[in-house]
């Protein structure tokens, strides 16, 4: 039992980075980032490249993953999303564009890194014991870094001037413009930050389970599940969704045959959405 809780907490912390990133992009840009899983995957592969191939320290690899994927996100916003949003009259256009960017990243990863599962050895070795549960030091490190980042993001969004402008933009674009905010710049930053979080999450997870070029869609699906549970566009909802999915998954893997867990999660999600379509923390639509 303790082991399941420990596993759940580690998953939840990693998922929270994913959910926070997709929520940032969704609330600021009103774009559902279908490429979020691919950004995660790219972050993992960049860490693999810098650590396993270039032989650089893990910290450098993780920073590279954050910066590179963040820049990819910013470039997507400036060159693709901004233009499509300006010229299109339908919201579906940005969705299709997001799916396109997912394919773009996936194929870029296939060309650059191939289709093999890539991993790097644990950063730290050793195992802690908590009660009856075992906690490998590497997973503890991943958990710790995730927690620190989550707190840092929450502090940034809550207390910094730029973070406040991001929240304002998510709530009322015109009113934000009237406050003299450079909304284009804030949108680019928001997209970049959301993407960087996905990259970091991937860069952390590669030390635990490895990644491959095709993992993106599965991760995106998990991200969508989390924001559906928690409520789209709400930070508290993202965190709640991550905690819920992390623990459900940990319990599922412990008590159910492997492939059954996600089947059960989807069935439960459909039933849940029938009762509460806006998620736990979300506002009812319309």
């Amino acid at each position: 039992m303790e082991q399941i809780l420990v596993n759940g907490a580690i998953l939840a912390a990693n998922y929270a980075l994913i959910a926070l990133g997709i929520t940032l992009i969704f609330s600021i840009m009103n774009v559902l980032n279908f490429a979020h899983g691919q950004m995660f995957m790219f972050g993992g592969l960049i860490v693999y490249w810098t650590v396993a191939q270039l032989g650089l320290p893990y910290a450098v690899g993780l920073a590279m993953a954050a910066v590179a994927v963040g820049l990819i996100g910013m470039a997507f916003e400036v060159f693709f999303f901004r233009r499509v949003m300006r010229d299109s009259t339908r919201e579906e256009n940005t969705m299709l564009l997001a799916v396109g960017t997912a394919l773009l990243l996936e194929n870029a990863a296939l060309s650059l890194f191939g289709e093999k599962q890539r991993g790097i050895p644990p950063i730290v070795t050793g195992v802690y014991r908590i009660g009856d549960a075992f906690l490998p030091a590497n997973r503890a490190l991943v958990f710790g870094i995730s927690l620190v980042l989550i707190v840092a993001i929450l502090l940034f969004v809550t207390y910094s001037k730029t973070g406040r402008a991001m929240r304002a933009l998510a709530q009322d674009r015109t009113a934000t413009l009237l406050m003299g905010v450079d909304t284009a710049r804030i949108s680019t930053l928001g997209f970049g930050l959301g993407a960087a979080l996905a990259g970091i999450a991937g860069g952390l997870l590669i030390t635990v389970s490895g990644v491959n070029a095709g993992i993106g869609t599965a991760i995106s699906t998990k991200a969508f599940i989390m924001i559906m549970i928690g409520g789209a566009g709400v930070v508290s909802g993202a965190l709640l969704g991550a905690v819920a999915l992390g623990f459900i998954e940990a319990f599922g893997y412990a008590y159910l045959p492997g492939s059954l867990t996600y089947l059960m999660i989807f069935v439960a999600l459909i039933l849940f959405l029938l009762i509460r379509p806006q998620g736990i923390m979300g506002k009812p639509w319309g």
Partner: protein
Amino acid sequence: MSTRYFEARDLTVSYDKVAAIRDVSIGFDEGQVVALIGANGAGKSTTLRAITGLKRPGRGEIWFEGERIDQIAPAKLVERGIAMVPEGRRVFPHMSVRDNLLMGAHTREDKAGVASDLERILTRFPRLRERLRQNAGTLSGGEQEMLVIGRALMTKPRLLLLDEPSLGLAPLVVRDIARLILEINRDEGVSVILVEQNSRMALRISQYAYVLETGRIGLEGASAELIDNAHVRALYLGG
């Protein structure tokens, strides 16, 4: 060139090739309260949107403090001293009253000035001080109107544009808001363009007024005289 403090000359704004306003010209001197009144759809809000750059005029010029401003991006106008309070209040609902006010200071770097302005605004609006940590979405309509006016004042404007501040408010609250607009104009030396469907209130607190009729200025004059004008009385003041 323009010699007046504020001047909009021959503004024409079209939506999908249909003109919403045509050849609208307004002008006034520093420190005045000017009203734009008229029926729903007469073009009052469009005129304001043209002034703030939210909708570019197809034709015409806008001058403020001796400089032409009709090509400047809306966000940059804030730094030029023009603040707009949009129709329907538009607070940031999931943000505290304090954060809403601080959003008004977004472009300002003078930390001490921001702190003292925040204090001054909270003294002017004691209700906002009581609700400082509360989310703006939980405020009453009148409190939200005070908040958006306070938020606009945090930008340190010299010209304040108010779009239908009385909309949906109870008569007593409208009176409070009217008094506040006058006080702000008097105490802070801020010029005001007031767009209102509540013509009576607008004519009472303004010195000069323009009456918009289907996209054109049908009538203009000193507000005190317009109140007594038979045409205005019949059409906009309920006889």
